[in-house]
């Protein structure tokens, strides 16, 4: 296995094109445990951290540019990013321990293609786009179209993600992420839920996106959420109103979970309903502050 550290997109693409067994990496927090578990090592490892575009973190022309290889610790300590996308930062901050936070990246979290990846539901809920480069040039793809199944992405060989672009939140718009794990730290989501809510000046819902993690082979959008929530008064505390029940039922209907040691199908469905309601309530509370 040969380690390569290119310092430009062109160099990285050339290296990847030269070797069908080459593989990109950023934090290696998924990759090395997979090698330890017996997965075959690639013939070439291409470290993306030296490619400047993968390290950007800035707001310009109406969207945030977040480099695919920026470590989680840099995202969670970036004040403006935290206030723009509290839910994305919540999801990111849940990835592993402080040690893992120093290395783990959004690009790796997405492209490892685990159904339980914590930063992916918020990225999808925010309508983030991935900028992909490769031998054929550059293309932009919604994050929701990158993962096609557990461990599989729509990226071609010699392609990689340089950065994510996330629209700056509109007035009255915010997000939230929550997951269920049986411990307080260091575990993988049994269910995760992200919500992005936009309120009008009276606190009524204008727009809503709810995305679930770990309940299907890829993240699952609760497609009925916007219809159920639009026009509802969300700035007040969630009570027993019928639409909250409806939202929970819509979340359950969006799940296609499996039974495993972390949770049964039935348990995952019930938790999905609870977390969908909770994240909507949290995102709405934050959105109210952003009116």
């Amino acid at each position, binding site marked *: *296995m040969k380690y390569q550290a290119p310092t430009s997109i062109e160099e990285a693409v050339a290296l990847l094109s030269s070797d069908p067994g080459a593989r990109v990496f950023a934090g290696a927090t998924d990759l090395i445990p997979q090698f330890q578990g017996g997965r075959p090592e690639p013939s070439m490892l291409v470290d993306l951290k030296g490619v400047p575009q993968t390290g950007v973190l800035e707001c310009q022309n109406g969207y945030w540019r977040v480099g695919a290889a920026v470590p989680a610790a840099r995202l969670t300590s970036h004040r403006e990013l935290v206030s723009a996308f509290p839910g994305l930062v919540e999801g990111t901050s849940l990835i592993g321990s402080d040690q*893992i936070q120093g290395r783990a990246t959004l690009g790796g979290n997405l492209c490892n293609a685990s159904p339980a990846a914590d930063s992916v539901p918020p990225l999808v809920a925010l309508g983030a786009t991935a900028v992909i480069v490769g031998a054929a040039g550059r293309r932009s793809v919604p994050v929701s179209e990158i993962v096609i199944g557990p461990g599989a992405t729509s990226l071609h060989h010699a392609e990689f993600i340089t950065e994510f672009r996330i629209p700056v939140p509109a007035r009255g718009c915010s997000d939230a992420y929550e997951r269920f794990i049986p411990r*307080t730290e260091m575990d993988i989501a049994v269910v995760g839920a992200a919500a992005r809510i936009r309120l009008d000046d009276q606190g009524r819902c204008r727009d809503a996106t709810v995305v679930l993690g770990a309940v299907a082979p890829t993240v699952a959008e609760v497609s009925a959420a916007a219809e159920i929530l639009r026009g509802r008064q969300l700035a007040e505390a969630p009570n027993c109103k019928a639409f909250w029940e409806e939202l929970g039922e819509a979340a359950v209907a969006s799940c296609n979970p499996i039974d495993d040691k972390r949770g049964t199908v039935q348990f995952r469905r019930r938790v999905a309903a609870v977390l969908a309601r909770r994240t909507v309530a949290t995102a709405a509370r934050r959105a109210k502050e952003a009116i």
Partner: protein
Amino acid sequence: MSRTYVTCVVNGDPVDFLCHDYQTLLSALRDELGLTGTKEGCGTGDCGACSVILDGQLVCSCLVFAPEAEGRSIETIEGMAEGQHLHPLQESFLEGAAFQCGVCTPGFLIAAKALLDHNPTPTETEVRYGVAGNLCRCTGYDKIVRSVLDAAVRMREQDTRKETA
């Protein structure tokens, strides 16, 4: 297979070593540089025994490829004491009986140092989260947490003494 030549700074001293590209930083520290204070527990990022500080950032050295160390600065447990003077964390761990077999201790000390470097006045909860990536099979954690809190007090006192001196 040819090996890669790496130069970096370890505990303030420039060092160089040869490694295979598949080797981890943990293996380079232990097997190429003879710095065996950094331990291997799991090799998969779960136990924190291999914790080091890489350019100011706490990481698991078992999840870093050795060639990534080129041009970087690494702090390991061997650099924690200054000569005969133990670091306040080491003193607190000794006095607070924060270890038994000791295998986890270098990792806990490095993680705790990284925490206190960024946050000199942590709450108990912050300490518990700060060392959540470190596993100990012996102590039950409580004495470790108390010792980190105790060291934080000592370090603040040292700083005030330095300022008034």
